[in-house]
């Protein structure tokens, strides 16, 4: 039994260095971060009540502008989500309907609840150096307490004070900026959102129109009216 106890102690210790080096050691520019992003995206949303998967585009401008486009298998637009600060607009072209409100008003049962964390997920600046590994506790955006785990200076995982977790992987270097091509969000509400980004363009100019919903002829409803995806 002593051997068993010893093994149970040794194995985690042996595994620890392996875990801490799972992200690559990239020679990124200190202080460089994603200011703007434009990328093709594959997204899947899984929860107890809802499921959705699809492809599209993701456009982001730091700190709080985001435009997500989800396409149907035929290439038509299923959903456009625009986030600006605390405001969010969910535009469904096939229904000629948009749902507008504050992000924290997203109904828990809508299947879109996880999107309230997207700003938090996108806030994943690298550490000052690629020699930094470990976990720090800090006050993140909107003064939310969070723990951030770095591996080789790259954000590997974030955990909010409420138990929401984001995992970052498949890093690459773009113009000196480290960029995670895969992000998985597990909310405390047991919703799972997986984003896989492809052909990213980082820190290129983006026109304001990209972040502005076109609502002419669109019926606008409050977020509380949103049912399902």
């Amino acid at each position, binding site marked *: 039994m002593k051997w068993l106890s010893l093994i149970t102690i040794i194995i985690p210790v042996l595994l620890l260095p392996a875990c801490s080096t799972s992200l690559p050691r990239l020679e990124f520019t200190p202080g460089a971060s994603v200011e703007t992003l434009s990328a093709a995206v*594959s997204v899947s949303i899984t929860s107890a009540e809802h499921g959705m998967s699809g492809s599209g585009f993701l456009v982001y401008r730091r700190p709080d502008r985001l435009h997500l486009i989800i396409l149907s298998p*035929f290439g038509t637009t299923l959903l456009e989500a625009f986030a600006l600060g605390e405001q969010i607009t969910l535009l469904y*072209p096939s229904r000629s309907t948009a749902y507008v409100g504050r992000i924290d008003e997203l109904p828990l049962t809508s299947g879109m609840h996880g999107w309230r964390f997207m700003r938090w997920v996108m806030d994943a600046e690298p550490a000052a150096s690629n020699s930094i590994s470990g976990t720090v506790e800090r006050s993140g955006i909107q003064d939310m307490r969070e723990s951030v785990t770095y591996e080789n200076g790259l954000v590997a995982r974030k955990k909010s004070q409420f138990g929401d977790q984001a995992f970052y992987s498949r890093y690459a270097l773009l113009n000196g900026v480290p960029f995670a091509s895969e992000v998985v969000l597990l909310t405390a509400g047991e919703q799972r959102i997986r984003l896989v980004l492809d052909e990213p363009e980082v820190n290129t100019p983006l026109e304001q129109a990209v972040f502005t919903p076109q609502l002419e002829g669109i019926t606008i409803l409050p977020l509380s009216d949103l049912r399902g995806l």
Partner: protein
Amino acid sequence: MMRIFRISSTLCAILLITCSTALARPVPPLEGLEALRKVLAGITDFSADMTQEKKLSVMKRTLKMSGTVRFRKPDQFYMALNPPHATRMVLNDAVIEQANDRQEGHTRVVLPPEQGLKQWFSKLSVPVTSLPADFDISADLTNSLYTLKIAPRGTGQIREVGISFLADGTIKRMVIVERNGDKATMTFKNPRRNSGLTDRDFQLTP
């Protein structure tokens, strides 16, 4: 979401109808639709490779995807997109299922029976004698390439669906223009007809 899939099912039906087109000369829209119906009668299944390009009106970027499509009478349709956008969609009459390559985000939508594939094809079991009231239809012929344009009237999401095909019935391209100016182009290669597709070719899981 229901309406989204209704549109998908409509587009699916248009796609399937035109996949089997064989017109030998320029024709008025009504004759063209009737010819399509006749050709469809000789098809039991169809499959092709596909590339898809999506151009967004507000961005100077194009999303490119590739995959395969399959159809089998009377009511099965399958579409699979390759990585990195791997997604599968299966339509069995009025039941649509969709998931990605990891079987995440599984979506299942049941349409009303009147919107199922079976219903679409039963409508085509009788000759087309009048043009659909809610569509503007036009056709042109360039060399041996026909282009048929179908524009739903009203202010819905779809402004126009264009289908290009050769006189021998080979579907070449399908273009969907949305009201906001976005354009999706599907180009087909290696079309295969009546190759003996089975239920196994229409499963969500690989």
